């Protein structure tokens, strides 16, 4: 099986079958990272460019390690300015990169839609590593993989996503992903951080965190950006933390076997208390481990060829 698409731009475009394919492929790649020699030759000779317009250590490193474990050559390009500041159109940027004949461009950008525009300008694959407040598909996939490992299935689970929904690409991708897989998603946050019409994406919406957490199987806490205070999205960190932060008291409302996710990096004592973040329900580090496997699967499913596919099926990798 192969993803019959050139690019991976968002979860919204993917079918449930495609999601399941990526998740099962990722699960099979996890074992590679446990070997003594953590490498398979599958994507030897392929070139991956990690084009990051936003600072990111975790995601960029995860994509880089994933590419290298698949034996692809990975190059990192960090750009601190937009094309406008450089006086270059995105089309120019795209054409210049393409002239170096990469097989895949992984792009992170603060402006929503930039990976989509790039994908239209280049013939190689484009993977969205997070665009503005739009989507972060690999993050949602690793979240789904993490939950699936613990719960066995995603169907019928209750998922609460808590925090700044308006500015969160993680929230959007996870709403699409989990609802497609049959979970029931509730988003919760201050009314100032719930974007217009979010319920039309297929989730329930509330500003009452206690309600959102009641009987939930999975809690996903979102990182709060401190600068939102000065924009009056919330009055103070103290109040935000008191009302929306996840602590042991609020946690009691969830199911006994609840699991807690966070896309990181966490603000300890703000959206999540240290006790909870380091506690037994937290799967934050599993998420990071699964991130590599999911990204290996994405590269494989977009860039692999039929020959390698047969080898995988024959268990020869």
């Amino acid at each position: 099986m192969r993803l019959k698409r050139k690019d991976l731009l968002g979860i919204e475009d993917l079918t449930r079958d495609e999601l399941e394919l990526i998740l099962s492929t990722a699960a099979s790649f996890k074992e590679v990272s446990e070997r003594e020699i953590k490498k398979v030759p599958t994507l030897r000779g392929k070139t991956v460019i990690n084009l990051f317009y936003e600072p990111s250590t975790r995601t960029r490193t995860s994509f880089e390690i994933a590419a290298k474990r698949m034996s692809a050559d990975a190059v990192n390009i960090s750009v601190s300015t937009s094309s406008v500041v450089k006086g270059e159109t995105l089309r120019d940027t795209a054409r210049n990169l393409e002239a170096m004949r990469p097989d895949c461009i992984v792009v992170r950008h603060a402006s929503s839609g930039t990976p989509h525009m790039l994908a239209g300008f280049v013939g190689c694959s484009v993977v969205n590593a997070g665009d503005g407040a739009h989507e972060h598909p690999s993050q949602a996939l690793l979240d789904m993989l993490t939950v699936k490992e613990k719960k066995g299935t995603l169907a019928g689970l209750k998922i609460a996503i808590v925090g700044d929904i308006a500015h969160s690409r993680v929230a959007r991708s996870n709403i699409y992903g989990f609802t497609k897989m049959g979970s029931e998603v509730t988003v919760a946050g201050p009314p100032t951080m719930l974007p217009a019409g979010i319920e039309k994406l297929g989730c329930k919406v509330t500003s009452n965190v206690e309600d959102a957490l009641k009987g939930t199987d999975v809690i996903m806490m979102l990182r709060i950006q401190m600068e939102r205070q000065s924009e009056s999205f919330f009055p103070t960190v103290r109040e935000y933390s008191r009302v929306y932060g996840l602590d042991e008291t609020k946690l009691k409302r969830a199911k006994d076997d609840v699991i807690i996710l966070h896309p990181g990096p966490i603000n300890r004592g703000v959206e999540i208390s240290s006790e909870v973040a380091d506690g037994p329900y937290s799967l934050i580090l599993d998420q990071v481990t699964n991130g590599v496997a999911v990204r290996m699967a994405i590269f494989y499913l977009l860039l692999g060829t039929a020959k390698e596919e047969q080898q995988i099926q024959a268990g020869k990798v």
Partner: protein
Amino acid sequence: MNRLVIKGGRVVDPAQNLDGFYNIYVMGGRVASIKKVEADTSEVGTGVDVVDATGLVVVPGLIDPHVHLREPGYEYKEDISTGAKAAAAGGFTAVMCMANTKPVNDNESVTRYILKKAEGQPVRVYPVGAVTQGQKGERLTEMSELKSAGCVAVSDDGVPISDPGLMRRALEYSSQFQMPVITHAEDARLVGHGSMNEGVVATRLGLKGIPNAAEDVIVARDISLAELTGGRLHVAHVSTRGSVELIRRAKERGVKVTAEATPHHLTLTDEAVIGYRTEAKMNPPLRDKEDVEALRAGIKDGTIDCVATDHAPHASIEKDVEFDKAANGIIGLETAFSVVYGLVEEGVLTLTEAVRAMSCGPAKAFKLAGGKLSVGSPADIAIFDLNRSWTVEPAKLKSKSKNTPWAGKELKGVAVKTILGGVVVYTKE
């Protein structure tokens, strides 16, 4: 003295409540007589040019009260010559050009420069002066000087006037020169970093939204100030149902307010942005279906006096970039009539209502010559073939910039001839 007769066309002149088959005789750049075709027995003498308009529609030359010709300062986007040629190709015979050039049209030397460049062009160019010096929103411009240099209105279009006290003074002061203040109604703090309409489409695309209230609150404010001062207000590019209702009520109370809507706000919704299409990015943004319906009703009942293109040329470096960084605005002069005619085809507007909003509506709002075909009026005339379709090919447009959301679309209604002061200035190949 040039003489011209336009024979056999269906003449639609809302100013005279005319819709029928007439021959129009032009002499010395003015309409000399207009005769019912079947009753016209006059012979055409020698030296008279004949335009056969059989099967075509003859209307007063279109007037666009809101364009950006970009000269001086941004000639890489457009200049007065290319903008004027685009206008003539769209059936326009007059345009009002906004003041946000570089330097800003806030003094007579810039106004005179624009008018100098406009000489010999195929449309009349009426400059709009700035309300405030440098469009900085701090001090009023010398409006007496702007008026005598040839400005017909004042506007800081492109930049909202955020200070209500200053807006009050602008309405008061400009009234002595009979220059309407054109408001670009937008509360910058409600817009924030928004780059499209606020709503589910913006939420799905992860783009920051601009709520209708960002426009409504300023329209309400400016109507109150026009009421207070007796000043003459014109609301540019109305985009929301709330604004339409505010203007309708204000007109009922006798407030001196007029308004315009663009072809794109009358026909497109925020769904045109899907796919991060920067050619659907403009300010105010494309709104939702209910807003579009309200604008159409506003044109129909006269609440909205004019269609204005807000023709806003931008180069590819300003449009082929990240969506939230891309410039606002689209070109519109060459597609305006066809797009509005689409509403006639849909049964939303009558041809008379469409032509009214594109000719006598703006002429009345700004007291411009033209906009009618009565005897003695300037012979500014547009002739359209309503049965002919065309495909919008950006490369073939006369405008220097190509930022149009109708690229590749087939539209109906083509300007086949544009006549300015009795002279044919444009003929469709």
